[in-house]
């Protein structure tokens, strides 16, 4: 699963913890890390939003060109140099790429370009930053597992499956990670139907209040267990009343949890 790891670096944020985690995973699983530095269009275009009534379109486009040029030529080099330092001896096993555009689009584009090839990406590592990367569309649209890094050593792993997101890969992957990091592992199955009755199941039938309840329960159990990594399966999109307020269970879990979260895809 960690043969080809993608670490997208937004020009808006330098994900030091994600880079360190990618190094650890690449070392343990003999993988290759791809770094994609994305010059965020939305940041550069802020100028247009606030300055268009006092600056001419020509001047704005010249300034934007200047900023893109500096970002691509100088800043990306500085950022990737720092990344190389963090990767240490693994540096020669890494791919470095610079693009400009929208963060999620560029990641999706990179995943598609390498799909089926030798560089087929098997996992994306993002760093958790309050109110930022959980807003990225990639969190919903990504077709490969996403590791949301919050830092810290992995000593305890909790893997959770639910009856609405049965994912066979979760237990096997959790075992691999726990073994390689020499961590303690707990497997939990969260059941929302009466017939589910696994050994580690937690029955929620009686006080079932909707999907959010399962999310809360998973996070609560992970925190109680003092897990440093929570592995969850793919969940379906859940809609609110009349299609309003669509919410995504995995995003809710990732937001509420105070540990790193790995979201698996079948």
């Amino acid at each position: 699963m960690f043969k080809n790891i993608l670490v997208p670096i937004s020009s808006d944020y330098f994900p030091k913890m994600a880079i360190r985690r990618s190094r650890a995973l690449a070392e343990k699983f003999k993988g290759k890390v791809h770094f994609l530095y994305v010059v965020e269009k939305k940041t550069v275009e802020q100028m247009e939003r606030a300055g268009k009534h006092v600056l001419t379109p020509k001047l704005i486009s010249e300034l934007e060109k200047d900023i893109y040029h500096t970002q691509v030529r100088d800043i990306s080099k500085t950022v990737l140099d720092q990344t190389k330092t963090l990767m240490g001896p693994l540096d020669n096993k890494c791919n470095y790429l610079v693009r400009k555009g929208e963060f999620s689009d560029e990641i999706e584009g990179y995943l598609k370009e390498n799909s089926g090839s030798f560089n087929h990406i098997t996992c994306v590592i993002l760093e958790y930053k309050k109110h930022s990367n959980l807003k990225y569309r990639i969190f919903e649209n990504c077709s490969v597992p996403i590791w949301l890094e919050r830092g810290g050593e992995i000593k305890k792993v909790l893997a959770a499956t639910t009856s609405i997101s049965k994912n066979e890969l979760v237990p096997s992957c959790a075992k691999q990670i726990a073994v390689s990091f020499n961590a303690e592992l707990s497997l939990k199955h969260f059941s929302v139907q009466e017939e589910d009755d696994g050994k580690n199941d937690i029955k929620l039938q009686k006080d079932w209040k909707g999907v959010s309840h399962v999310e809360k329960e998973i996070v609560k159990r992970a925190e109680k267990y003092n897990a440093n990594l929570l592995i969850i399966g793919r969940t379906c999109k859940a809609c609110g009343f009349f299609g309003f307020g669509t919410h995504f269970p995995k995003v809710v879990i990732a937001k509420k949890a105070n540990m790193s979260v790995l979201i698996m895809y079948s």
Partner: protein
Amino acid sequence: MNDPWKKKVLLSIIGISILVITYFIPTPSGLTWQGKMMLGVLVFAGYMWLVKPIPIAATGLLVLILPVIFGIVTRPEGFSYFGNNAVFFLLGAFIITAAIEKHNIHKRISIFVLTQMGDRPVFFTLGVFILSAFSSFIMPEHAVAALMLPVVLSVLAVVKAIPKQSNFAKVTLLSVAFGCSIGSLGTLVGGARNPITLAFLAETSNIHISFFDWIFYSMPVVLLSIPVIWFVLIKMFPIEITSLKKAHVLLRKEVTDLGPMKPAEITTISITLLTILGWVFLHYQLGPAVVAILGGLLLFFLGLIEWEDVEKRVPWGIILLYGGAITLGVNLYEAGAADWIALKGLGLTGNNPFLVLIMLVVMTIFLTSFMSNTAAVAMLLPIGLGMAEVSGLPVIVTSMTIALSGGLAFMLVIATPGNAITYSTGYYSTRDLLKSGSTVTILCAIILLVIALTYWKLIGLW
């Protein structure tokens, strides 16, 4: 509502409904029908400038014609304020700025000044701050930010500053943004709100302030704020690098590459200086607008600038905003709406001058954080005038307080073009801006209030 067209139409309908509702609601006591409709126009303009379903210049045009449509003013009156001196003063200033930009004069001066600051990063950021502030005395603040950016970016690239991590980059870019903002308070040229305040005072109260008077009243606020803001920045973001030797070498190389000053540059500088002298010494004889346009025309006569150069750099739509802003202010005052709002406002503050000034500062800073500061100042000037009349404060004090507070927009990216231009480089976050901007706003507001209550009293403004 993902369709931008639908969104624009819906937002415009909401705006128009403000006018329709105003038309049908009963006129509040103490207000004439014209006053009620002008209040509607004020709320409508504020909403349109804030939400921007149509360009702010187009709203400026609407503000010109709405009083005519509602019969508040006659047709000749409705358009007369558009030809105000302030509009043409700004036009002339834009032409001179375009010439400075064209001949790269600002780059030469910036690089020269920065090479004199030594290779200590702290002094470099101070140099950037002072340069940005002082440049805003002779050029509009947005032009200064745009011109400073390439110079500053080249230095940040040399020192390998990492976006969002490097405090040196944060302090440098925030020095540009905040320097431009605070410098724009200093003279009539820095921000369009300054000449508009002048025009408003002349039209409504027959008070005439000269170019030099403005400097005399506002400069203490600027000069006190510069060290305070810079100190806040370096304390909030302790600079991590110790030497700028490499950057210094780069800047010196750039000075060498620029070569000796060309005759066109020397002539442009001379005309700019002559224009400034004209603003100071010929204010009452010719007026700042005539001097500015004379300076601009001289640049054309000497072949230092072509019309295309001006077109490339001057967004003509903004002139409509300026015209609309002056019209809105004068019409609000003449329809009695300003006095009515002032009376309501004084219900909160009483006749206490200190509380009145605090309220004006807070209201202006709040509005200017979300909309064009010219628009915000134009909306509040008549209210300030009304408050002055009711509370006994001199009109000039409330107007200057509003105009200067209009430049204290440090907290949000969208508040000023300077903030937006520097933010778009990606070196600092919105949180960095909010954190430093809120502290700086509070401190500058205190400085402004202290100056208003002491210095302005001392020099006889009230």
